């Protein structure tokens, strides 16, 4: 290779006698020349594309962030300017009268969530533990698949389901039906996270329990579940945050109520429902209330999410200490 030149020099000269018994029609020199010509021809274009791509991609990210900040900005500005003490303490005023609050809806949401937890947590937890500890491959796969599918079922379908099994027989919209609809929606996520975290409990820890003659069920109860508790609670929290803002399954189950609810078998107000009905109403003052409600709702959701990340952090530390 005589006269090596710079990378950016177009004229390469090559050593010609490097054909070592290769019968291809193209010599190495010809190939190198061909690649080099092409390389030099397209290099500028490739560099431009490469540089433009960075801008295009960061633009996408900025656009997404812009949407987020825009939503948060409006929530904060409109929400805070409409929030006051009455909002938390008073019942809604009749149509047209200004003022009033959504005390019943805030309480209603909490009650619905309690019912949901009572339904969703035992089933989700039990199913998750069973899948990790007992289930045979096929059965576990079937249940996992079912939970994945369940995760993708539109929320309004759960509303119809709760309506068919609770509203129709009792002939009344009810807090119970709304809570159960939300509870069922929590099941798939709790099942999957529970299974995942329980499965992560190190085998030596279980063996230690079994080795001293503890029956398996006690190992699960006393060792496996407690050491994955942080993760399990995280799963519960995340699924709770998700259903807390759900509106569609409540439309014809909890239904909404302008007053305090009388029993679990009567219609009940819920914050998301209240936001919905206020938002589509023609009254200026109700729009204001809708923004305030939205701010409160999103704060609830974020607080639950924050708690969940606390628990997941604890869980991580726990497992890292085992390893």
């Amino acid at each position, binding site marked *: 290779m005589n*006269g*090596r030149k710079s990378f950016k020099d177009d004229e390469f000269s090559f050593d010609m006698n*490097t054909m070592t018994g*290769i019968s291809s029609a193209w010599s190495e020199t010809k*190939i190198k020349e061909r690649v080099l010509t092409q390389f030099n021809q397209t290099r500028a274009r*490739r560099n431009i594309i490469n540089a433009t791509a960075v801008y295009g991609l960061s633009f996408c990210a900025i656009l997404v962030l812009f949407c987020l900040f825009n939503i948060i900005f409006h929530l904060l500005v409109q929400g805070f300017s409409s929030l006051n003490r009455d909002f938390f303490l008073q019942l809604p005023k009749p149509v047209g009268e200004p003022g009033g609050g959504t005390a019943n809806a805030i309480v209603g949401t909490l009650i619905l969530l309690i019912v949901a937890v009572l339904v969703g947590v035992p089933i989700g937890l039990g199913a998750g533990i069973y899948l990790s500890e007992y289930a045979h491959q096929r059965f576990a796969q079937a249940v996992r698949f079912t939970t994945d599918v369940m995760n993708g079922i539109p929320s309004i379908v759960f509303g119809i389901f709760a309506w068919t099994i609770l509203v129709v027989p009792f002939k009344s919209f009810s807090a119970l039906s709304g809570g159960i609809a939300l509870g069922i929606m929590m099941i798939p996520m709790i099942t999957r996270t529970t299974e995942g975290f329980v499965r992560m409990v190190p085998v030596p820890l279980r063996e230690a329990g079994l080795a001293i003659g503890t029956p398996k069920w006690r190992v699960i109860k006393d060792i496996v579940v407690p050491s994955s508790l942080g993760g399990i609670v995280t799963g519960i929290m995340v699924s709770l945050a998700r259903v807390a803002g759900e509106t569609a399954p409540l439309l014809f189950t909890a239904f909404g109520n302008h007053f305090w609810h009388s029993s679990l078998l009567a219609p009940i107000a819920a914050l998301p429902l209240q936001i919905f009905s206020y938002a589509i109403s023609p009254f200026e003052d109700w729009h204001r209330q809708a923004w305030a409600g939205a701010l409160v709702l999103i704060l609830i959701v974020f607080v639950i999410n924050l708690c969940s990340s606390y628990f997941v952090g604890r869980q991580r530390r726990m497992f890292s200490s085992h390893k």
Partner: protein
Amino acid sequence: MNLNDQTIGNDILPGDIRPHINTELQNGKPLFVSHRKPLEESLENPIPQIMVKELNFYYGRQKALSKVSLGIPAKKATALIGPSGCGKSTLLRTFSRMNDLIANARIEGTVTIDGRNIYDRDTDVVELRRRVGMVFQKSTPFPKSIYDNVAYGLRIVGIRDKKTLDQIVEKSLRQAVLWEEVKDNLGKSALALSGGQQQRLCIARALAVGPEILLMDEPCSALDPNATARIEELIFELKDDYTVVIVTHNMQQAVRVSDFTAFLYLGELIEFGSTQKIFTVPKDRRTEAYLTGKFG
């Protein structure tokens, strides 16, 4: 001066060629001087193509290479040996700036290829990597057909012409001694090949874009002895046309394929010289200890 007489350690470059090289920059432009002496080439006075000068390399705060200087001769096979973690892979990767991809990595000193410092600001890394091919420890076939794997580097530079592609793919596969095994199945997925075939495919892929230097990072460590033997034969042939730098754990392999050997230990270049000399009369006690299996 004769290479056989000296150990080329830090600061000392292979004998004769020192006066013929100018790695300095003048007004930001490289000055090129022919490396070649008008005399015939021989093992004793090789032409260094890669010049490493006072190279320090850091991963964050950890120093991986310390004051490494050596000259890797053109169209010869040079083996980098040393115990794990001695920095031999790091050194190899600096030759095609693959360490750029690692966050926190920092480099001091110069690496010069054909008289040009590749760590200059205005180096076109893409061009550098086209000229400096690399084969990895683990074979890295893309999830495409055998043909498309070899044509990959050609397509990205914009060669679309079917005839040209066919020619170059065939030639590269022949060079990598894989052609006879795959010529009837060029459309088959590269993932269906055996480990050794995959590694040869990766070599063919690297050769297709017409590199001048071929870096190999323990190319046989994941292969069985049979496949290893084939790759070694291949390397032996390739060094007629390419400057081959190979990192290896296997000292027999270094003896079999390389003309020169560099021994690194704890990030420092301990000894560099002709393979024969290094393995028969090592100058440094550490080299000797390593070669005789006292550590590593």
